[in-house]
């Protein structure tokens, strides 16, 4: 066992995601308190790995690791973790990290905390679960733990640096994989680009049904804004995926973000929290969005939208 912290970084199209730097920065702070090293782990090629402020960076490249492949990445990370016996393994609670963290936990019988937003030097973790409504403080048992951390939880600057990476071959044979990468999928074109809008009216589950989208669209037009939404609206088929704001959607930073019936789960906040003016209308007075919005109203969104239309 060591007191090292392993950070599983993530990259796409030659660029590391912000969460990778955030985790490396936090790992440095924790490693220094624990007397270990912060080790950034870069899996896959096509990327300059010498960009972290880590104490060491391990770069594992192999033809089978060219694109994210949960099976191949899982095997490599499992072998590396077994070899290094770190005190903590950090993942992002992201599209890629979510495929690996819980899997590794079950595979190795090591505790795993998800939705992690805070980590103390005693490795107590604060997890923002239940749609952002509750914060759990949990202590992992044993000598090793896994933390899957929400993006935006730690400052990214602390993780940026120029530590020279050590290139190593894959520690496991990747010859007979069941999962094969076929091709990349690009975003559908042809719709409004919500990332370039200065004003957005955004609807959530509270909009209730496809038949009510028209009202929201009308309000958006009256405000010279575009219509966006949270994930459940897309999953229900009420708006196309091109309009989705949040972790699995798009990140937006408009001058105005008027939210109708969105409760403000952490996944949605990831996509819009830096909007300049956030106004939220929701019937649930305890909706987490009211801790983030600049202005809020506990009211029926339909009545508010109709009344606004009369005034515009």
């Amino acid at each position: 066992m060591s007191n090292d912290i392993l950070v599983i970084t993530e990259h796409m199209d030659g660029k590391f995601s912000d969460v990778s730097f955030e985790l490396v920065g936090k790992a440095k702070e924790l490693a220094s308190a624990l007397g270990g090293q912060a080790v950034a782990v870069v899996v896959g090629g096509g990327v300059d790995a010498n960009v972290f402020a880590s104490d060491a960076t391990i770069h594992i490249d192999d033809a089978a690791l060219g694109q994210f492949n949960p099976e191949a990445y899982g095997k490599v990370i499992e072998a590396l973790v077994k070899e290094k016996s770190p005190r903590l393994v950090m993942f992002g609670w992201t599209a890629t990290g979510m495929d690996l963290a819980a899997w590794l936990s079950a595979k190795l019988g090591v505790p795993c905390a998800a939705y992690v937003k805070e980590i103390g030097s005693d490795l107590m973790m604060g997890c923002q679960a239940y749609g952002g409504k509750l914060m759990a403080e949990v202590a992992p048992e044993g000598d090793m733990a896994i933390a899957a951390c929400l993006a935006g939880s730690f400052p990214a600057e602390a993780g940026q640096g120029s530590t020279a990476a050590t290139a190593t071959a894959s520690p496991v044979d990747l010859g007979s994989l069941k999962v094969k990468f076929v091709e990349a999928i690009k975003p559908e074109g042809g719709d409004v680009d919500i990332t370039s809008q200065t004003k957005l009216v955004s609807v959530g589950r509270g909009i209730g049904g496809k038949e009510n989208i028209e009202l929201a669209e009308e309000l958006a037009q009256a405000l010279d804004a575009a219509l966006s939404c949270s994930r459940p609206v897309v999953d229900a088929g009420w708006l196309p995926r091109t309009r989705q704001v949040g972790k699995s959607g798009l990140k937006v930073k408009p001058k105005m973000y008027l939210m109708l019936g969105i409760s403000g789960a952490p996944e949605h906040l990831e996509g819009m929290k830096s909007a300049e003016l956030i106004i939220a209308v929701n019937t649930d007075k305890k909706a987490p969005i009211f801790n983030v919005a600049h202005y809020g109203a506990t009211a029926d969104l339909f009545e508010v939208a109709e009344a606004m239309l009369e005034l515009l």
Partner: protein
Amino acid sequence: MNIVVAIKHIPSIADDLPVSGNNVDFDSVDFVLNEFDEQSIEQAVLVKEAVGGTVTVVGVDLIEELDNILHLAIAKGADKAVKVTADEPGADSHMQAKWLSEAIKGLSPDIVFAGVQASNDLDGQIGPMIAAHLDMPYIGGVSSVEVADGTATVNKEFAGGVGAKYSVSLPMVVGVQAAAKPPRYAPISKVRQVAQTATIDTVEPSGDASSGLTFKKMAPPVATGHAEMIDGSPKEVAAKIVELLKSKGLA
């Protein structure tokens, strides 16, 4: 084709979540089906409709109220239902994944579906853990699945419409973000009919696993800020919002 759906019955976040001690007060919350499991059930039924087979829905009965959920799943197109009778409202993902894996093993699945995540996955999601226990590959964030000749072709979403297509030799576990089509509606009359005729298989929890997490505290997050609340009738709220937007040159 043996298609299995592993579901999670979780505390509803639509209402207040009272806390008792260091965890949710499970006795005084409503339990609902994890919203991603609705997508997962739909995707499983879509695969069955495309290639034939049997859809079996499996869940842990935490509070002896899972039957309604299982009946709904059958009304939406599942063929069989199995419940693990745990009667342990606070069972974590690790425990549930282990029990579900033991129950699923005997079903010889070709493909297992699970919701990509649940709001109470404090120790991670059941999908990847079931994959680890059953030694199958896992891909999450999936928004479409096609099966042919023992191979699944799945689309995984990263963010903002960017994704990747994978082909996977079955069996595998799929973490569903969204079904290829919005979940179908099951009329109440059909659910009632299912409730009178369907049998739900019952199995005892088997196997030990734990999250390895000790809960020290559970509380609403400490707000670093709070919105300035606009009070009044909907008309008054609307007027104040319009006024605010005009004052900032936004309307």
